């Protein structure tokens, strides 16, 4: 397993070059959210909005209406809990193409409960028009902005930063609403997402050595959640289904 560093930073530079309408907004956490390089290279497309996420969200809606492609960068927790009304009224209801790039999702922050986005998928799955992606490795970081762009509506991404493992081949990018099959089997079906896929791989190696046959899928599109691959996998399990996620068991993958 190879560790990749600052993959989002590299990927957004590539994406911004291909899509000149891309603008980045940050809420005083640009350096912590891997958009420092973007701000340096594209200062006229970078807006430091201060610790005022609700204002940042309404701005993004206005920019989207004017033909820009705004990408909001801050910690995931500030991109759903604090600004839900602005998300719903300014962005989701008019179905505008705005990308919410939420960093340090779930428990991947030392900041405690004020910084932990542990029910963000549950909340945002209920928001109409919205797509929700949960990133699990470096290959997915490289693919997710293109999927968001193709979706052409409001998108929430649970993004990983700094050193992120690469589990999936770089030439097999993430697919929209399509789980990745990591092992085939029919005793148990295992669905994993986010950083928990790494834990799932540790467990499946030991369980397979004991003779258990496991159908393991990595799921990164949490909304829409209509992937027939997941339905088929659940159907064929002899004993049942296990889900593991970096989120509350209520409202998320499970």
């Amino acid at each position, binding site marked *: 397993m190879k560790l990749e560093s600052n993959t989002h930073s590299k990927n957004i530079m590539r994406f911004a070059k291909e899509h000149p309408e891309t603008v980045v907004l940050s809420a005083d956490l640009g350096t*912590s959210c891997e958009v420092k390089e973007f701000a340096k290279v594209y200062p006229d497309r970078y807006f430091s909005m201060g610790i005022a996420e609700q204002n940042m969200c309404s701005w993004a809606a206005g920019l989207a209406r004017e033909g820009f492609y705004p990408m909001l960068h801050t910690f995931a927790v500030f991109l759903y809990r604090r600004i839900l009304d602005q998300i719903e009224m300014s962005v989701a209801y008019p179905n505008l193409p705005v990308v919410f790039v939420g960093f*340090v999702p*779930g*428990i*991947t*922050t*030392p*900041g*405690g*409960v004020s*910084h*932990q986005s*542990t029910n963000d998928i549950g909340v945002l799955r209920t928001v109409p028009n919205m797509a929700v992606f949960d990133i699990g490795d470096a290959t997915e970081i490289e693919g997710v902005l293109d999927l968001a762009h193709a979706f052409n509506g409001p998108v929430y991404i649970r993004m990983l930063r*700094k*050193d992120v*493992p690469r589990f999936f081949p770089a030439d097999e990018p993430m697919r929209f609403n399509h789980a990745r099959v990591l092992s085939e089997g029919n*005793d*148990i079906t*295992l669905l994993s997402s986010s*950083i*928990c896929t*790494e*834990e*799932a*791989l*540790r*467990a499946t*190696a*030991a*369980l397979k*050595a*004991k003779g*258990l046959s496991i159908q393991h899928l990595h799921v990164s599109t949490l909304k829409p959640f209509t992937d027939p691959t997941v*339905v088929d996998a*659940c*159907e064929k*399990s002899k*004993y*049942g*289904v*296990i*889900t*593991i*996620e*970096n*989120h*509350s*068991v*209520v409202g*998320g*993958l*499970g």
Partner: protein
Amino acid sequence: MAENGIGKKLFKVGLQDTYAHGASKMYLLKKYGLDAMTLIDGAQKLTGESFGIGEHELKEIRFEDFTAV
């Protein structure tokens, strides 16, 4: 699952309807049961078998320093 008429058991590993305190990822994964051992426990509950897998049999957890904001 219910929408598709699948009547299977479901074991959910994640935060069990609780807030978590602030600490390293490795510590929190273990403390709140989001880890490989909890998953193995789930497999044992579903199959009714005991696999006798100890933490030492798993690949070592990757150390990650999350102290930076």
